[in-house]
């Protein structure tokens, strides 16, 4: 059972939670840029957290459903059209065979997640279904979606979808989607990684090499409103603004870097390392974005969004991480309840 790709959009890739445990072979963890929205999209269709979704950057694809399928679009705010009529987002929608979904442009944020009941069933590579574009493996042949491609779904997607939607319907809060053959529910899940304020405020702890930068550069890093450059991608977000200078110039031996590491190459233009980052780097690290803010940073749309960094302590970073984990698991629990206990 498949989802046919009529138009590719800008950059849609199959993603899951990524590949853990392979960084010593320089294999990036990868996975969803906004892992929180990916997880909620999965929960909205009754999937486990490790199911693969379609990650949609900025301009979405147009897809044709060959079978009935329970789907949900979460993350960046799109205004999708289902057979030409608005499709509700952030909620489960039972789409009928033959329907066409045009995801359209993101009106807020950068990355949306389209989850389908049963997951997108591409073959795992190195333990993950995530597309790793720099290595050209994982996902759908290691590439972004192309027009004419088919996304494999679970063989019993129609049955699983019907069964899950029936359970949702027991609450009685279902509704037809006007102008379409689809059915949905009267509630929706909150967005935990939006709104994308301008500037987006991202908390950072001091980088491993913060002391190598002169005081004006450290102050400018925290004061400046940085534009996320248009040539940013899943590997890193380039920050356009003043050039930062390292006070002490010394060679740094290549070392392990992290999601959210802010490194400053010789040109002085900082780069925040994202999901498909290289696993090691030799540029000085002025700061490290806290992990709770990584999914929010992912939603800063390259080319338009601006970001300001705010210094935090490790304790504050831990507290924020705990708070986000609590909010996500509470939401996921609530969604499980909507499906009834048997689903999970």
């Amino acid at each position: 059972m498949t989802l046919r790709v009529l138009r590719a959009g800008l950059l849609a890739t199959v993603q899951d939670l990524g590949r853990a445990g392979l960084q010593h072979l320089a294999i990036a963890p990868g996975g969803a840029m906004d892992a929180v929205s990916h997880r909620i999209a999965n929960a909205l269709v009754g999937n486990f957290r490790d199911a693969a979704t379609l990650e949609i950057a900025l301009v979405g694809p147009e897809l044709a459903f060959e079978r009935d399928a329970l789907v949900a679009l979460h993350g960046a705010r799109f205004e999708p059209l289902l057979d030409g009529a608005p499709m509700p987002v952030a909620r489960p929608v039972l789409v009928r065979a033959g329907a066409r979904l045009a995801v359209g442009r993101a009106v807020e944020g950068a990355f949306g997640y389209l989850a389908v009941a049963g997951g997108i069933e591409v073959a795992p590579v190195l333990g993950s279904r995530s597309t790793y574009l720099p290595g050209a493996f994982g996902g759908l042949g290691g590439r972004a979606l192309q027009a004419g491609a088919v996304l494999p779904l679970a063989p019993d997607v129609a049955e699983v979808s019907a069964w899950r939607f029936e359970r949702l319907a027991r609450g009685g809060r279902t509704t037809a989607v006007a102008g379409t053959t689809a059915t949905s529910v009267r509630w929706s899940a909150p967005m935990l990684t939006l709104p994308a304020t301008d500037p987006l405020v991202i908390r950072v702890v001091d980088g491993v090499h913060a002391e190598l930068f002169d005081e004006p550069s450290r102050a400018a890093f925290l004061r400046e409103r940085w534009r996320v450059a248009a040539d940013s991608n899943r590997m890193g977000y380039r920050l356009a603004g003043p050039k930062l200078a390292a006070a002490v110039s010394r060679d740094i031996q290549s070392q392990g870097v992290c999601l959210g590491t802010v490194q400053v190459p010789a040109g002085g233009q900082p780069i925040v390392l994202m999901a498909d980052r290289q696993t090691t780097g030799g540029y000085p690290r002025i700061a490290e974005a806290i992990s709770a803010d990584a999914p929010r940073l992912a939603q800063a749309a390259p080319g338009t969004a601006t970001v300001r960094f705010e210094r935090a302590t490790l304790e504050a970073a831990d507290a924020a991480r705990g708070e986000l984990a609590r909010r996500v698991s509470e939401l996921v629990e609530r969604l499980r309840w909507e499906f009834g206990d048997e689903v999970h």
Partner: protein
Amino acid sequence: MSPRRDATGGRRRFAPRVVPAGDSALMLELAEDLDLDANATARHVAEEVRAAGLEGITDVVAAIVTVTVHFQAASAAQAAARREAVGHLLLAALARTGGAEDERERAPVEIPVCYESRFAPDLAEVAAATGLTAEEVVRLHAASAHRVLMIGFVPGFPYIGGLDARLAVPRRASPRPRLEAGAVAIANGQTAVYPFPTPGGWNVIGRTPLRLFDPDRDPASLLAAGDPVRFRPIPAAEFERLASGRPAR
């Protein structure tokens, strides 16, 4: 560990230290500069940390002179506890492990390399820069006792130390836009082998028909940090035979 100068100009040893790298990793720094003894220590510490199997650790990355341990946590208390446990584990592993003198002897991984000119665009320049003939460059490269210092940059990309000191050349002034997969290149006292066609600034002196990285193979990476390596010169005919014999991607 490599000595460095302090503010008074005197020499002192770099004291290994554990620092946070963001809120989800700790890094053990063993030295500031390339130091084969510190590199061996980093790899041995990484092995110990991996073997300890501490819950929540996702990745242990031994680099040139550092070990980075990535962990995950679902609450503030768990993050703090894991950070503390990882810090102790790193220091305990450091206390237990030795450096280069504790290197285990094993058979080197043999990498066949064709050094003929069509695969070696920079060989003549390297020869000129080092005052050697191309044949001597090849002989010294094949005779050096190489060892993988770390895997980084792109999947399966080895930084290989042990290059004969007579082959010390810097990176090229301007990087080439594309090095072929299998390109064997030297710079800064090290050898690299490119797993994918990528831009690169190292001096290409040959090419191997082996696939350094294949996501469908187990293990996916031909080399791991610590592997001894020997480069074996092969003629173009053998290169072609080995290259065609490899499984289709």
